[in-house]
């Protein structure tokens, strides 16, 4: 994936997913595009979830399984008819298994312009510690 500035942006095809427990809610389910990175103290998840309002976003961390669910309420009202349709609103759903132990009390989530930024701080004992070697 080219990430240099100035390149033409490509539409990421919304990837449909088949979830292990099948969803009973009608409508398509999409896997949001994410960036995940970590440093010594935390793991950060950025997820594109356009159309999801903060009250419709559910973040669940159970054992080491992180589940993101974002529901999208279709914006159209009943009187509108389609002229062009390139996307179908649906639910965003994605699960991640996290390897490090997360300090649940300090998890921070922020939703700005349809992008979720989730900061998952690692608990103290899971952080790598530099061990200095003493010489006699």
């Amino acid at each position, binding site marked *: 994936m080219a990430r240099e500035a100035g390149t033409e*942006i490509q*539409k*990421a095809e919304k990837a449909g997913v088949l979830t292990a427990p099948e969803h009973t809610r009608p409508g398509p389910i999409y896997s949001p595009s994410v*960036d995940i990175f970590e440093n010594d103290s935390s793991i*950060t998840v950025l997820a594109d979830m356009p159309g999801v309002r903060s009250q419709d976003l559910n973040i669940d961390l159970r054992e080491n399984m992180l589940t993101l669910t974002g529901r999208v309420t279709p914006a*159209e009202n009943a009187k509108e008819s389609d*002229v*062009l349709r390139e996307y*179908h609103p649906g639910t965003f759903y994605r699960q991640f298994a996290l390897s490090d132990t997360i300090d649940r009390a300090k998890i921070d989530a922020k939703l700005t312009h*349809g992008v979720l930024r989730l900061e998952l701080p690692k608990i103290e004992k899971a952080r790598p510690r530099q061990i200095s070697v003493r010489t006699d």
Partner: protein
Amino acid sequence: MLVRRVWPSRPAFDSPFGGFDQVRREMLRLFDAVAGETSGDIGAGAFPPLNVTQDDENFYLRAEVPGIEPDELSISAVRNRVSLAGKREIPREHDRVSYHRRERAEGSFNRTVTLPMEVDANRVTARCADGLLTLTLPKAEDAKPRQIAVRT
């Protein structure tokens, strides 16, 4: 030999409308294929994906633009054409980080849509919320269909 049944091939003799039902299903499947329900959407590859709808008064253009600041968007409308241009930048992370996933794309985009009718460019309004852009484009008064009364 394994035969995958793409769709029920059982002849539906049990219902007088069975035949119709089959035709209807076939049609729906074809429509779905055309509309891109089964294979990638129309306009695939162009960012951002757009939906255009209309009612009696307005056209509504909606685009999924996650992570784009509203002032990074440049929107213009003339006659029956609407253009949407902008740039999506993903801020660099300063501290030393190692990436596990990097799926979100950045770059510039420029899209033009031709509407089936002229719009009143002076009254176009744009709203951006939760990464969803909504343009309301009022149809031009002289382009609106007029009801014609038939005299007897």
